[in-house]
C-alpha cells in the first residue's frame, strides 16, 4: 500500500489480510487463493502489509476495551491516511469489527466479507468456476460462522458461492440462524476451554461428519430440496468430502475436530476462496 501511495494512487479495494491470513500457515493458503482470484479478475487492490495490525476483535470480546480502542484508532489512522473507502477481508471477525465497531471511533468504510465479494464476482460472470478441479459427485457442507451469520445476517452469500461448484451441497441440522459455533469466537481461540464433557469443535465436527456421511435424518441441499446424493455406507470412500468454511478460526477448529475423529484422510476443510480458486484452475 505504501508503494502505491508513493505513486499517488489509491486502490479500488483494500484487501485486509488479518493476523490469521498473514501468520497461520494453513490460512496463508487461503490468502494466496484469494489474491489469485483478485489477480485473475483484474481488480485494482492493495494490502497494508507490515502496516496492518490486529483489529482488536479478540481484545474487545475478552473485555479489554482499552487495548481494543488503541488498536482500532491506530488502524483507522492508517486507513484514513491512505484514503481507503472499501475494505474486503476473508476474516469475519475483522469484517465485523471494522464494519460495525470502527465507525464509532472515526473509521467509516464500505466493508465486504470475501463471501459476498466472491458472490458479486460470480454474479458479474467474472468467476465461472470452470477449467479447474471438478467437484462433481463430491459432498460439501457449509459451516456458518457466527460473526458472519448471526452477527451480520450473511447466510446466503457463502451458499451462493458454493452453488457454482457442481457438488452435492448438504446442510447440517444446526445451520444458518441456528448454526453452532466452532468454539473459537469471543477470544476462545487463545485459551483452553473451560472444563466440560466435550470440546465445542468436536461436537460441531461430529455434526458435519454425520451430515457428509448421510447419517442426518433428512438430507437437504441448500435450496431445501431433498438431496439426490445417495446415502453412503459409513467407512466407504466418499471421494473427498469437504467442510466449507469462511473464517480462519472455523478453519482451525473444524480441521482439529476432523483430526480428533481421525477422518482427515477422507474429509477436508477448505475455505470458499480455495474452492473457487481450484475450480477456476488458479492453483498453478
Amino acid at each position: 500500500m505504501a508503494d502505491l501511495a508513493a505513486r499517488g494512487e489509491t486502490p479500488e479495494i483494500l484487501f485486509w489480510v488479518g493476523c490469521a491470513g498473514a501468520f497461520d500457515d494453513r490460512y496463508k493458503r487461503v490468502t494466496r487463493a484469494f489474491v489469485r482470484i483478485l489477480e485473475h479478475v483484474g481488480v485494482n487492490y492493495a494490502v497494508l502489509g507490515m502496516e496492518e495490525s490486529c483489529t482488536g476483535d479478540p481484545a474487545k470480546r475478552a473485555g479489554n476495551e482499552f487495548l481494543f480502542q488503541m488498536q482500532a484508532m491506530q488502524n483507522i489512522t492508517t486507513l484514513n491516511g491512505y484514503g481507503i473507502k472499501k475494505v474486503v477481508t476473508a476474516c469475519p471477525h475483522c469484517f465485523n469489527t471494522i464494519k460495525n465497531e470502527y465507525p464509532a471511533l472515526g473509521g467509516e468504510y464500505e466493508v465486504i466479507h470475501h463471501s459476498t465479494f466472491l458472490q458479486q464476482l460470480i454474479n458479474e460472470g467474472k468467476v465461472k468456476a470452470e477449467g479447474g478441479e471438478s467437484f462433481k459427485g463430491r459432498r460439501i457442507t457449509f459451516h456458518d460462522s457466527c460473526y458472519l451469520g448471526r452477527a451480520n445476517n450473511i447466510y446466503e452469500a457463502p451458499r451462493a458461492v458454493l452453488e457454482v461448484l457442481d457438488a452435492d451441497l448438504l446442510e447440517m441440522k444446526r445451520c444458518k440462524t441456528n448454526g453452532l459455533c466452532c468454539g473459537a469466537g469471543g477470544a476462545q481461540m487463545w485459551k483452553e476451554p473451560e472444563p466440560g464433557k466435550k470440546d465445542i469443535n468436536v461436537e460441531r465436527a461430529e455434526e458435519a461428519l454425520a451430515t457428509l456421511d448421510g447419517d442426518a435424518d433428512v438430507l437437504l441441499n441448500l435450496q431445501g430440496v431433498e438431496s439426490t446424493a445417495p446415502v453412503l455406507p459409513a467407512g466407504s470412500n466418499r471421494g473427498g468430502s469437504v467442510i466449507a468454511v469462511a473464517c480462519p478460526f472455523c478453519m482451525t477448529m473444524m480441521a482439529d475436530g476432523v483430526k480428533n475423529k481421525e477422518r482427515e484422510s477422507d474429509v477436508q476443510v477448505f475455505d470458499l476462496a480455495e474452492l473457487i480458486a481450484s475450480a477456476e484452475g488458479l492453483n498453478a
Partner: protein
Amino acid sequence: MHFSIQNILFLLVAVAGFGLFAWQARKIRANILVGRDRDMSGHVNERLWKTLLVAFGQQKMFKRLTPAILHLIVYIGFIVINIEVIEILIDGIFGTHRVLSFLGPLYSLLTGTNEVLGALVVLAVAALWWRRNVKGVRRFTGPEMRAWPRLDANVILYIEVVLMAALFLMNAADLKLHGASLPGAFPISQFLTGLLPDSPTALHVLERVGWWAHIVGILLFLNYLPSSKHFHIIMAFPNVYYSRLVPQGQFSNVDSITHEVKAMMDPTYQVPAPATEPDGSAAAPTPFGAKDVNDLAWTNLLNAYSCTECGRCTSVCPANITGKLLSPRKIIMDTRDRVEEKYNSPLIFNPNLYGKEAKHDPQEQLDRENHTLLRGYVTPEELWACTTCNACVEACPVNINPLESIVEMRRFLVLEESAAPNSLNVMFSNIENNGAPWAFSPSDRFNWADDLFVAEK
C-alpha cells in the same frame, strides 16, 4: 341495574387488586432504573414494527413449532377472554348482568369464541404441563431451575385451569337458570349444564361463585405476576420495544475509554469535563464494566424482568451443550435475584426464600449483604466459557440479550481487576507488542506473498 352490598364489595376488591399491583409495578420500575442510563429514544417506527412482529406476533416462538402452537392458544385465549373481564368489571361495579349483550349477534360470537378458546386453553395447558412434568424437556431443567422456578411454572398452569373452570361454571349455571332466553352462545357450557343441580337457588349461588372466582382469581393472578416468570406477559412488550437495533455482532463502545485513548494519541484532544453531581461536586467515577446490577444498563435489568425461564437460550448455547458451566438463562435469573436482594423487593411472594433457601443461616445472611452479582452469583468460569456466538440472543423469544451482560462483566474482570485467564493476558500482550494475537513479528506479515505465484501442491 340494582346496587347492592355486592357492588360495594366488588369495588373494594377491584381497587385493592389494581392498587396493590400498581404498588408492585412502581417498585419494579425503580429496580430497573437503578441500572446505568442508556439512551434508547428514537427509531419509533422501527421499534413499533419489531414489537408488533416479535411480541404481539410471537415471531420468534415459531422456531419451535409444538410449544409455539400451544403458547399461541393460551396467548390468544388470554387476550380474547379478557374482553369478558371488561364485562365483568362493568357488571360488578354497576350491578348489571351481561351488559355487553346489547351487541346481539356479535355478543353471541364473542361468548362463543370465549368458550371454544377456554376449552382449547385447558387442553393446551394440559399439554404444557405434560411437557414440563412428564416428558421432561431438557431445557426445563438445570441448576438454575431451583425449587421456586419449577413450582412457579406449574402454579401458573394450575391458575389457568382454575380461571377457565370458573368461567365455565358461571356460564353453565347461568345457562341452566335462564335457558334459551340468556343472550350469547355457549357451545361448551351447554354440555355442562347436566352436571349442575336443578334448584334455581343453587344455580344462582353457583353462577355467583363462578363469577366471583373468575374475577378474584384474575386479580390475585395479577398480583402474583411480579413474583413470577409470568411477568413476561407484560414486560415482553417494553423489552422488545427497547431491544437493540444494531447488528448483533456490534458490541457497545465505552465512551470514557475513547476519550482517554484519544487524549493519549493526540495531546491537544480536549477530554469532556467529568460528570458532576447536582450540587456541583465531582461525581464518583463509574467503574469499567459491571460488577453489580447497578453497573449494568437499565435495559439489561429490564431483560431480567422479562425472562420466562424457557431456557431456549441455554439449550442453544455451545458452551452449555458441551457441558460447561455457562447458562445464559442463569445469568439473567441471577440478575433478577440480585436486584431484588440488593434493592427492596416489592414482591408478595419472595422467590429467593422458597424451599431450602428459606433456612436463615446468619453467616449466609452476612455473606449475602457483602457479595455482588459478579462472584456472588455469577462466577468468572461461567463468563470465560462464552464464545460470544449470539446463539442465546437469537433464540430468545422476547429479545433478551444475555451476551451484553456477560461482556460487561468480562470488562470488569479485565479492566478493574486484571483477572483474565493467563492465556488471554498473553494474547493481550502479543497484540500490544506485535500487533497480532499470536507471537509473530510484524516484519513477517507479508511472508505469505513470498511464494504466491509458485505452484503449490
